[in-house]
């Protein structure tokens, strides 16, 4: 037991730090004073999960309020009891494999004079901690809010925590059994990078679905409609029959005001203990052989003469540099998630959010945008509101581009390999093209798709479509060039985890929020100009276009200049 606790003292802070880790949160070697987040990793964790908790509380208040009107507030508890195992299975599967099989620290711990069972138990506790934090973030605030709004008894409040803990432990334990079998006897999830990437994608989809559900509920509440539950009543009422732990948890909480709840609590604890005991038995047999099997290298594939020659086919310097940038960006789950994927997800989430919220009352998109569509199909806007169209396009291009941090982290992502950039005989401007190419191409493509989607939907004229595409591209390009300038000014080259290079680094933050600020400046400037020119739309539009082009030109000039200086002033 002593060694189990000793192990937990090391594993849990590491785990908490890992979950809440953002670039720059860990105290770096050169930093004189550790940041607040580095000193208090739980605070970083709280911040990371705070938005889910806020949504959760809001959801609890909104849904309970409506259900209470029909006297159906118990449905809320059943719905949560059904959702907890689902969230546990999704996150438990991802985090379980990642933490139990992919961590490099395993070798170190296995070499210590600690019984295997103790180590396995400590590792499982560490993984469960993550699951508990996730499940609790999703549902604890909702349950508390529900208890307040529904006017539940004191017993309900006391039983909320056991409800969340027990209804997540049992499915977690059951889930791990096939995980141990998979990892012992198959080649599943051997590619750490690929698994991490898929896990992160699933995580994002779950979060987005959750946020969109909340958005829909809130819109329905505003329209005084009965909001839908997280899952349809028929699904969870049938599903709970197959989930004994959730069934007992549900009954326990529903009967919180009577002594019956204690019987359900005992049944719940018994089911959980049986599940955990079986899981520990399987873990004892399969975990270590699975971990050791995971370390084995895959079969060596030797290149044939033809493949060898083909793999070495010459390319130009620029093509070689761009290809290297793409490969390193796409093959690192962290880099891909934080740069490319975030630039896709954020606009998508906004569009979907608008769509879900807008159609929550049963309206079609056509009826919602009918006036705008009719207006855009006339030529009235050409005469009077051209400046607004130009302003919106310039600002929207900058705003959407600000989520793409591919360029504002291009130097930092190199870390110590920046040495190679300094060593190779490739001119700085040539390397600059490679550094900004992924960011510019992804932003440009996304903008094009967005305009095509919106333009087709709102029936833009071909001329407006073309103008929107070109103006947006100029803005996207400007953001990427500004981003690389910031990263050249504040590169983060000494990092130990890839997260530190792309997440919350100085350049990424300045790049993102600076661009958002720039979008605001564009809007303010447009209104100012319109006022100064006494509402002359043509002059305002022309000036705004010139401003956008000027910005693009300025940042191109600055980036070239800084790239030439970069190799001189950054020493590595």
């Amino acid at each position, binding site marked *: 037991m002593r060694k189990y606790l000793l192990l937990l003292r090391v594993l849990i802070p590491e785990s908490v730090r890992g979950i809440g880790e953002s670039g720059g949160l860990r105290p770096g070697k050169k930093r004189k004073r550790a940041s607040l987040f580095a000193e208090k990793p739980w605070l970083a964790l709280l911040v990371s999960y705070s938005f889910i908790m806020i949504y959760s509380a809001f959801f609890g208040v909104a849904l309970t309020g409506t259900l209470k009107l029909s006297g159906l507030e118990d449905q809320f508890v059943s719905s949560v009891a059904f959702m907890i195992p689902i969230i546990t299975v999704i996150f438990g599967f991802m985090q379980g494999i990642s933490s139990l099989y992919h961590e490099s620290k395993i070798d170190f711990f296995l070499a210590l004079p600690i019984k295997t069972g103790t180590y396995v138990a400590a590792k499982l506790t560490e993984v469960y901690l993550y699951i508990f934090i996730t499940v609790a973030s999703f549902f604890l605030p909702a349950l508390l809010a529900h208890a307040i709004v529904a006017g539940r008894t004191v017993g309900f409040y006391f039983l909320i925590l056991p409800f969340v803990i027990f209804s997540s432990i049992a499915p977690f334990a059951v889930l791990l059994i096939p995980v141990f079998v998979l990892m012992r006897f198959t080649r599943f999830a051997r590619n750490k990078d690929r698994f991490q990437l898929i896990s992160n994608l699933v995580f994002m989809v779950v979060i987005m679905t959750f946020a969109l559900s909340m958005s829909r509920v809130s819109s329905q509440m505003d329209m005084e409609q009965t909001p839908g539950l997280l899952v349809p009543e028929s699904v969870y009422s049938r599903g709970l029959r197959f989930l004994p732990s959730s069934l007992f948890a549900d009954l326990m909480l529903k009967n919180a005001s009577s002594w019956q709840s204690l019987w359900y609590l005992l049944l719940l604890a018994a089911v959980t203990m049986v599940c955990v005991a079986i899981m520990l038995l399987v873990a004892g047999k399969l975990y270590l052989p699975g971990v050791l099997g995971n370390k084995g290298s895959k079969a060596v594939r030797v290149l044939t003469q033809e493949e060898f020659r083909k*793999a*070495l086919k010459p390319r130009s*310097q620029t093509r070689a540099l761009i290809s*290297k940038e793409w490969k*390193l960006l796409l093959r*690192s789950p962290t880099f891909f998630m934080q740069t490319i994927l975030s630039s896709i997800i954020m606009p998508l989430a906004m569009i979907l959010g608008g769509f879900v919220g807008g159609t929550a009352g049963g309206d079609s998109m056509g009826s919602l945008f009918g006036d705008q569509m009719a207006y855009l199909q006339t030529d009235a806007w050409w005469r009077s509101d051209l400046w607004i169209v130009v302003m919106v396009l310039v600002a929207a291009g900058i705003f959407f581009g600000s989520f793409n941090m591919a360029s504002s982290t291009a130097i930092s992502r190199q870390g*110590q390999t920046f040495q*190679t950039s300094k060593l190779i*005989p490739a001119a700085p401007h040539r390397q600059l093209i490679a550094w900004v190419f992924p960011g510019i191409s992804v932003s440009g493509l996304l903008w094009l798709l967005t305009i095509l989607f919106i333009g087709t939907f709102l029936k833009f004229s071909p001329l407006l479509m073309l103008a929107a595409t070109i103006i947006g591209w100029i803005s996207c390009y400007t953001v990427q060039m500004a981003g690389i300038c910031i990263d050249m000014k504040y590169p983060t080259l000494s990092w130990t985890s890839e997260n530190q290079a792309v997440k919350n680094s100085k350049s990424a933050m300045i790049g993102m929020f600076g661009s958002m600020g720039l979008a605001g400046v564009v809007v303010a400037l447009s209104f100012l100009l319109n006022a100064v020119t006494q509402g002359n739309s043509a002059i305002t539009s022309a000036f705004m276009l010139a401003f956008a082009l000027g910005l693009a030109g300025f940042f191109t000039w600055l980036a070239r200049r800084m790239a030439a200086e970069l190799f001189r002033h950054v020493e590595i």
Partner: protein
Amino acid sequence: MISIHEISKSYDQKTQAVESLSLEIYDNEIFGFLGPNGAGKTTSLKMISGLLLPDHGSIKVNGIDVVAEPLEAKKNLSFVSDDPNVFLRLKGIEYLRFLADVYEVAEDVRVEHIKDLSHRFGMSNVLDQKIQSYSHGMRQKIVLIGALIHNPPTWVLDEPMTGLDPSSSYQLKNMMREHADKGNTVLFSTHVLDVAEKVCDRLGVIAEGKLLFVGTMAELREKHQDDSSLESIFLEMVGEEQFSPFALSEEEAGSL
């Protein structure tokens, strides 16, 4: 040929890493840089390869000024760092292709060189794997192969034997000899005195940023007037510097 004239380098304007170092390393020569940890070896090699700018002084590689004409100088040398963790997510073959493209090596030449070098270092079978799956020694080898693809006249190698298996280490020593014998220059740093003794035509001993000795092994023995091993002579020379009371800061000296 490498010409170093009065170069100095300090970090944070406090730590003097290299002080007024002057050195000529000739063609047909293998020059070994010896010194304890933190002596200034890596800083010197990085300045020669253009990774660090000297505060004072000048460096020429084959007559090309490293600071004034960095691109031309880079084409004339290859630098192998003591940290072999390069682009870990690229496959070995992709890394080599990247370097061959950047150094504009002709197709037949690159194919021939890579085939030869990977065979010599026993890497032919793993070129299709990602570098992150390589061991430390294999990473060192892929970096070495990458540095030598374009066959530059000057090699600058920072502790190149670290992590290499005996066979690869032997191959590298032979390659260094072959390269120097063809009229080229090889400069490398090492902690292994045995290697320095057997491989180097001349060696330089550096401690606390100052060059204490430059010459052949015979000259070194002559200077110290004994037949003891390089290890004894080295320890005697470096020890004097390291444990000199002048090496202590005022604060440290005050606390004694």
